[in-house]
């Protein structure tokens, strides 16, 4: 096709007169005065400081390195909530207004405005370096331009689904419920991470979650395990039952589902052969023996973590454990379907393989006294855990069929066979209550074919203590959870057998001074029929092993040993760690173990120097 313009035709001689019509037209030049920008305009930034959490994701995506995170004193800074007192500042000498910072922002706090003119004589604004706040660069409150919408959002808000056993299948036996991620799922889940590090800050033991997530994303499981072992020798356990403070702080969780950090850790630990994990765990172990001896009382996560650190620092470590196997509450408190004992054993085996001397079935205070330990060892760590169940002490609670949850869980984990009545009531609303209810429900299913389990919690569902997923899964398994019920007395039949539990409706739990003082509606009374009542209202430490003399010598704080910031008690040779000072939670226990190990190592090396 060729042009149809006849360029040879010079046109009429009067043709130039056509130009007269231009006199009637508006000039094409822009009128003087402000020209409002389009609704989507990508002008100067604004940042809603209330929404912004200082995660620095905008800084990471900025293709011109125009964004710096500035520390703003006075802003909230709470690692556990996932908030930092940093806010992005923009160097407009580098910014290209592409708006990627807006598209990727996990909170949606940052936006571009329709403001695009910057002329200013004030010296403080005579700079390209500007800290955007909600009012805009010149405090002129320009309307927003390019901001976050569903379409331009670059983040993936949905977690990879985790394969689980169906409720009908899992109530029949104790098999682990969660299947774990496949390679592909783990890679996709890991790719959701923006590497903000909120998880690292929130974790009690400061796990390097961004690093191991990135390693998983790179397909390098070995590196991931290495990153995990920097801070946590209980990773098989934490990958399954951690309370995951990291996920609560995850910036992706601000508008979507947080990255499944716990499941990713589990994936990495399960994906690598145990021999390789062992090799990684042994990395950095001191070849020099310090000649110092440390006794650790209790082979739970806190004690074993301290043992792990101290043995790597070259000290000789002996762990005293009253029971048959190590693991403490993770073995004798957490049911198999949540944490199979084989997984726990892998963690324990690795720590023991480094050369820790284990003395099982050795009860301190009975088989060996604290005084002997003080004499024979340079330092002693008490990692006693919370082994005693608290009682409600309501009338009838001394009946033989009124049991403590921790005691039952320990017996079941140790392999004792237990006859469970067809109707059981659990008092309590925490995770332990869920554990014992679900464990006994499984036994009921095996022994009677049906589940007859009721949980009476003091709290209402709006303030429930147990994890929401525990509550959901319990419901799926046929367990009835009744909220806001306070136990009054256990009903004992005339023939001496247990008849059930009588409860009142709870009106409030705390008084105005936030002290525990439950109020009940006495007109709303219910009898829950039961052949067994299980009390799961909290645990305490069995400090009987200390002996009177030591108990007297120690300083106490409301029933717990008083320790300094490093876990050291008021006696120079004695440290305490784990649930007995800081509990109850695996990952806090691990953090505690590290803390006392560091403190002991410092103490011992200083002693040598002196």
């Amino acid at each position, binding site marked *: *096709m*060729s*042009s149809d*313009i006849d*360029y040879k*035709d*010079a*046109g009429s001689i009067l*043709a130039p007169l*056509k130009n007269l019509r231009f006199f009637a037209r508006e000039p*094409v*030049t822009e009128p003087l005065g402000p020209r409002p*920008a*389009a*609704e*989507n*305009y*990508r002008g100067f930034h604004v940042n809603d400081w209330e929404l912004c959490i200082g995660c620095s*994701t905008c800084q*990471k*995506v900025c*293709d*011109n390195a125009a964004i710096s995170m500035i520390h703003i004193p006075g802003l909230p800074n709470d690692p556990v909530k996932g908030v930092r007192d940093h806010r992005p500042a923009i160097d407009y000498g580098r910014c*290209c*207004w*592409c*708006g*990627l910072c807006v*598209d*990727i922002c996990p909170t949606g706090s940052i936006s*571009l405005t329709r403001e695009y003119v910057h002329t200013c004589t004030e010296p403080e604004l005579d700079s390209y370096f500007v800290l955007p706040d909600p009012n805009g660069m010149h405090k002129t409150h320009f309307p927003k*331009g*390019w901001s976050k*919408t569903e*379409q*331009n959002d*670059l*983040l*993936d808000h949905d977690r990879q689904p985790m394969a689980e056993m169906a409720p009908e299948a899992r109530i029949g036996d104790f098999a682990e419920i969660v299947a774990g991620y496949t390679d592909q799922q783990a890679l*996709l889940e*890991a*790719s*959701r*991470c*923006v*590497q903000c590090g909120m998880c690292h800050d929130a974790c009690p033991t400061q796990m390097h979650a961004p690093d191991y997530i*990135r390693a998983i*994303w790179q397909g390098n499981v070995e590196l991931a395990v290495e990153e995990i072992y920097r801070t946590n020798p209980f990773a098989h356990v934490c990958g399954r039952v951690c309370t995951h403070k990291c996920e609560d702080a995850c910036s992706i969780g601000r508008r979507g589902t947080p990255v499944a950090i716990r499941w990713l850790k589990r994936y990495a630990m399960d994906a690598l052969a145990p021999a390789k994990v062992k090799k990684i765990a042994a990395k950095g172990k001191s070849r020099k023996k310090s000649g110092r001896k440390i006794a650790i009382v209790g082979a739970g996560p806190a004690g074993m973590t301290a043992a792990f650190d101290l043995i790597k620092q070259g000290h000789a470590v002996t762990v005293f454990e009253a029971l048959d196997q190590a693991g403490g509450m993770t073995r004798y408190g957490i049911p198999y379907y949540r944490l199979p004992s084989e997984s726990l054993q892998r963690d324990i085996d690795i720590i023991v393989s480094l050369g820790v001397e284990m003395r099982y079935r050795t009860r301190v205070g009975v088989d060996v006294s604290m005084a002997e330990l003080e004499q024979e060892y340079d330092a002693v760590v008490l990692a006693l855990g919370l082994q005693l169940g608290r009682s409600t002490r309501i009338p009838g609670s001394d009946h033989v069929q009124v049991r403590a949850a921790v005691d039952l869980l320990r017996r079941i984990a140790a392999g004792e066979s237990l006859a469970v009545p067809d109707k059981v009531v659990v008092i309590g609303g925490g995770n332990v209550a869920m554990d014992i209810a679900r464990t006994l429900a499984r036994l009921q299913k095996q022994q009677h074919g049906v589940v007859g389990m009721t949980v009476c919690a003091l709290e209402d569902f709006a303030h429930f203590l147990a994890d929401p997923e525990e509550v959901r899964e319990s419901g799926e398994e046929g367990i009835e959870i009744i909220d806001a019920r306070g136990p009054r007395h256990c009903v004992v039949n005339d023939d001496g057998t247990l008849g059930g539990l009588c409860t009142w409706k709870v009106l409030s739990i705390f008084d105005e001074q936030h002290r525990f003082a439950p109020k009940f509606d006495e007109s709303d009374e219910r009898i829950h029929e039961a052949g067994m009542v299980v009390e799961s209202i909290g645990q305490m430490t069995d400090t009987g092993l200390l002996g009177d003399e030591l108990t007297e010598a120690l300083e106490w704080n409301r029933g717990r040993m008083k320790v300094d910031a490093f876990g050291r008690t008021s006696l120079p040779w004695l440290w305490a760690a784990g649930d007995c000072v800081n509990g109850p939670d695996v990952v806090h226990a691990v953090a505690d173990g590290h803390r006392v190990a560091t403190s002991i190592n410092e103490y011992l090396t200083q002693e040598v120097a002196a």
Partner: protein
Amino acid sequence: MRPENYQAQSHPPSHEYELNFGPNHPGIEGNYALQVRLHGDTVVSAHADGGYLHRGFEKLMEGRLWIQNIALVPRICVPDPVPMEVCYSLAIEDISGLQVPERAKWLRVLQLELSRIAAHLFYFGGHAATTGMYSPSFWGVADRDLILDRFEELSGGRVYHIFNIPGGVRRDIPEGFLGRVSALLDYLEARLPEYDDLLFRNQVFVRRSKGVGVIDQQQALAWGVTGPNLRATGLGFDVRRDDPYLIYNQLDFEIPTEDSGCCWARTLVRRSELQQSIRICRQVIAALPDIGGPVRAPIPNPLAWNVPVGESYTRVESSKGELAYYVLSTGGEKPYRVHVRGPSAMHAVQVLEKMVTGGRLEDVAQIMFSLDACPPEVDR
């Protein structure tokens, strides 16, 4: 101004002399230079001297995440940025097997054609100015601005739209956008006869440009000439029709050609293309309301995006000729190599040097502008 590394050379007595045509010269396009050797007014030889705009785009891209490069690529050709964004995105989509939603494809075509119109309007102004006519410059820039207004509305940026990303486009069109584009097209179409009167029927322009800077089809093919410059030699090759991408195979348009291969023919081809682009835009505007669905395929988190191992050579038809991206991924979060096969690198170096040789000094600027070379894209 001389380049810093300039060294005067002593020559044997001669009637020839050397002239630095650019980089600061009203007759040069952007920051670019030609060193021409003259005998009187006749160009004896010419040496293209680029590099004044070199920012190392291709190297820069290797150090940036896949997504970050979308802010970089439009800068490679400022007057016609959309083909850069689209071509880069197409290459990544090709490697990673991303399926672009239908609506995004149509939206991309709309942008591509609007960008072509804007670039051609800009081109008329530049070309006319080299023959001493400045009104077309003002008209072209003013009318191009109206297109930029629509781009601002669509993407938030007037010049660097940064609107196409791998997977589709960043957002859907605003409310009433198609109506406003439609009105703009009506206006532009009504303006075309006025451009004809001003430029194409103007004997000053016709006589200055006709028969100047001639290139025949064989030479053009041998030198790697593409796009409107090739079509001005009578060969109707257009990537949109002959190797269709996006949804061009569903559109009805023609490929304008001219036979004479001179400056005049090159301008005329572009003038006719304006009409075709308007035609394509109208088809998109008519079709878009019936094409629903998302405007972007889901892409991984841009901070952890490994494009799979692979390479892609993807080409599109830009306003200046055939534009291609060669992207090589080794499976990392950044490209291993990005090579831009821009049309201007051929047109402004090898072709221009040969075309001006033997011509007259006053035509050098015109020839360069008629080729529509874009210096930032030459230097990359």
